[in-house]
């Protein structure tokens, strides 16, 4: 497909050099331009204009406490974020973000892939089973967060109750109140929430893999592990890479759970960069919040390009 397209465009280019642009051709070009215009204008007006406008706030002292006193401050907001003054938790928040994304995505991916392999074969009751698996994905992140917040509650939570009954712990643990467990509790909720996405996408991809390949492998006497690594994975590689990229971006941009479970606390131990941004918005300091937003865009842009070039998906 790709090579065909290339040839056509090459031929087109050669034609261009030879023939003089006729009146008819100019009119056709203009027509194409006008047809394309909405596709260019809409993103410009509704995506890029607000984004640029919002990013400009990052370089302003923009506090809703006093909108009469908005002024340009250069990189001051960024300097404040990265300052090493006592009380600044931004480096801790960056570390938390890394843990939040990596642990969540990898666990979701592995468990989601496993479930997808189980769902590949058709069996009785598959529809119901699928519906049950996909259910969490249909619920809002905030509601999931509130649900898990009460489950992890240190005095009346069901998780402590179960663990005590199983004699795994003696006294109730304040999961969300302890600095060493708060982030991981939120990650567990996030893993639970995100598995269905991988399952849905990978099941769809698996069903598209030709059975002939497996039959041929059987004839050659390949083991199941060999079949998995030499047929299954390469066949659905593009889906795997794309879903991983999408999920990394989404989880990075997913403060809902953190916000409704711990609000980033205690002492920023579970704060990630996007929930921190929400706190800044609440404090009415739009300048600082926007600076964090600009950093998020930069991180994701750099990450995506490195990821895509490393995995050579662009090829």
């Amino acid at each position: 497909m790709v090579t065909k397209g290339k040839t056509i465009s090459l031929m087109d280019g050669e034609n261009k050099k030879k023939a003089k642009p006729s009146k008819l051709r100019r009119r056709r070009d203009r027509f194409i331009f006008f047809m394309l215009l909405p596709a260019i204008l809409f993103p410009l007006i509704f995506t890029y204009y607000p984004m640029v406008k919002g990013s400009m706030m990052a370089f302003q002292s923009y506090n809703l406490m006093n909108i009469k006193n908005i002024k340009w401050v250069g990189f001051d907001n960024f300097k404040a974020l990265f300052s090493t003054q006592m009380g600044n938790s931004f480096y801790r928040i960056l570390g938390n973000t890394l843990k939040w994304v990596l642990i969540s995505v990898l666990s979701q991916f592995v468990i989601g892939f496993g479930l997808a392999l189980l769902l590949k074969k058709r069996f009785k009751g598959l529809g119901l089973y699928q519906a049950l698996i996909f259910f969490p994905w249909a619920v809002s992140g905030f509601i999931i967060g509130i649900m898990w917040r009460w489950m992890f509650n240190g005095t009346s939570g069901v998780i402590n109750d179960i663990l005590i009954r199983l004699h795994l712990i003696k006294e109730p643990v304040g999961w969300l109140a302890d600095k060493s467990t708060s982030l991981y509790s939120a990650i567990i909720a996030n893993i639970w929430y995100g598995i269905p996405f991988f399952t849905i996408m990978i099941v769809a991809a698996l069903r598209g893999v030709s059975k002939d390949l497996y039959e041929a492998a059987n004839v050659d006497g390949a083991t199941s592990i060999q079949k998995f690594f030499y047929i299954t994975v390469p066949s659905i590689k593009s889906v795997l890479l794309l879903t991983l990229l999408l999920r990394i971006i989404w989880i990075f941009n997913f403060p809902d759970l953190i916000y409704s479970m711990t609000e980033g606390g205690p002492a920023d131990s579970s704060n990630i960069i996007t929930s921190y941004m929400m706190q800044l918005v609440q404090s009415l300091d739009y300048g600082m919040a926007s600076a964090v937003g600009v950093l998020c865009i930069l991180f994701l842009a750099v990450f995506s390009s490195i990821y895509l070039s490393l995995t050579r998906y662009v090829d």
Partner: protein
Amino acid sequence: MMKKAYLWVGLLATLALVGCGANKDQGEMKKEGTDVVEINMVESLTSPERTKILEEIVAKYEAEHPTVNINIISPPLENADAKITQMLMNGKDVDIVEVRDSTIAQYATNGWLEDLDSYIEKWDEKETLTASAEEVIHYLKDGAYMLPYGFYQRGLYYRTDWFKDKGLEAPKTWEDIYQSGMALTDASKSQFGYSFRGGKSGYQYADTIYWSWIGTDKIESANAAYFLKDGNGETIFSLPETKEALHFYKDLFKNASPTDSIAWSFAEMVQGFVGGNTAMLIQDPEVIAICQSDMEEGTWDLLPFPIGPSGQGVFPNGFAGWGMTSFSENKEVVADFLLFLSNSENNTYFAENYSTIPIHSNAGEKSSYFSEGYFGVYLEMAKQPEVYRHAAYPQMYEAFATYKTEVDTMYQKYLTDEITDDELLKWLDDFWKTAYETEGKKW
């Protein structure tokens, strides 16, 4: 609690739909006659019960003034203040706005509120306003930017049955809370002495302890009680009493409160008390209704605010009220309605049904609700102004918005031994000294 909030939002949406329909009909009926004045009123601390009370008072006013049509707009509670900020930034279509102690400085600084002084001056009911009401009408020194509808003052809720079982006296001082709290704490039974608040707005509880240790005589203004009298920007955080009080605060957390209360805010601390995990709780009068519906009569009671070593019990005079927008096109009508809404009869009715402390001193005569029963505690405290004092954090500073988001984290770091007492107090002292230097004296 959160479930309840969602239910409320749902109910509210339905109510809003029904309400819109009804208002439209009324509006159309009136339009046949003379010109109708449309007034938009936006509330912040929305609940379906409260909106209903407001609607009743509005209906009464509309019956007396057929040419006025008042629409109540109720954004969902969760982010109401952010929504209201956006509406006010638009600069139109809002005539009356609910102003809170946490938002008044922002709204007034941005020029969104009208000075109500001239209207209040001419008001025939201004004589019966309580001292608390007078105090907050002029919260900002350059004008009267709102008319309060009520106050949220704190009292001490405690489990009478637990205290009786252990043979303990009802707590009067902070020290009593600590001692009886330790005696009642038994972690293995998930039973603790005190409903500690370490989550959102937990700093407010540390502040009341500081003030009860220091006493208000050393403080320059009750509305900016971080600054010392004649201190020229010096703060309470440099006093030895504050350090002592901070240690007490930590001990109360470590020895008499649940470990996970470091993350507790309103919902959890009330749930802890009502659900039978904690023996004592310091909260606003709105919790009375929750205790009445969820706890057995005779197992709990409400006591005056605890007293500190200074001999005083100091707490913020939390307030909220109604303001007129500076861009309202019907200022006379709006003022007339605001005075009607705040008159002794309507305000007492509102306060009784919404559990706030009323703004008129004759409320006790209008309704026995405020002189008898649980609410009597507040009357009791009002009779001893030399013991029970008001003090609040300097919310009129622009820096307060930043402070509010950062300070709870700092306290959490202190409570979990990540930073020392000196480091925390230095951070607080530096923050407010800088704010004073940048913004000047604002009270």
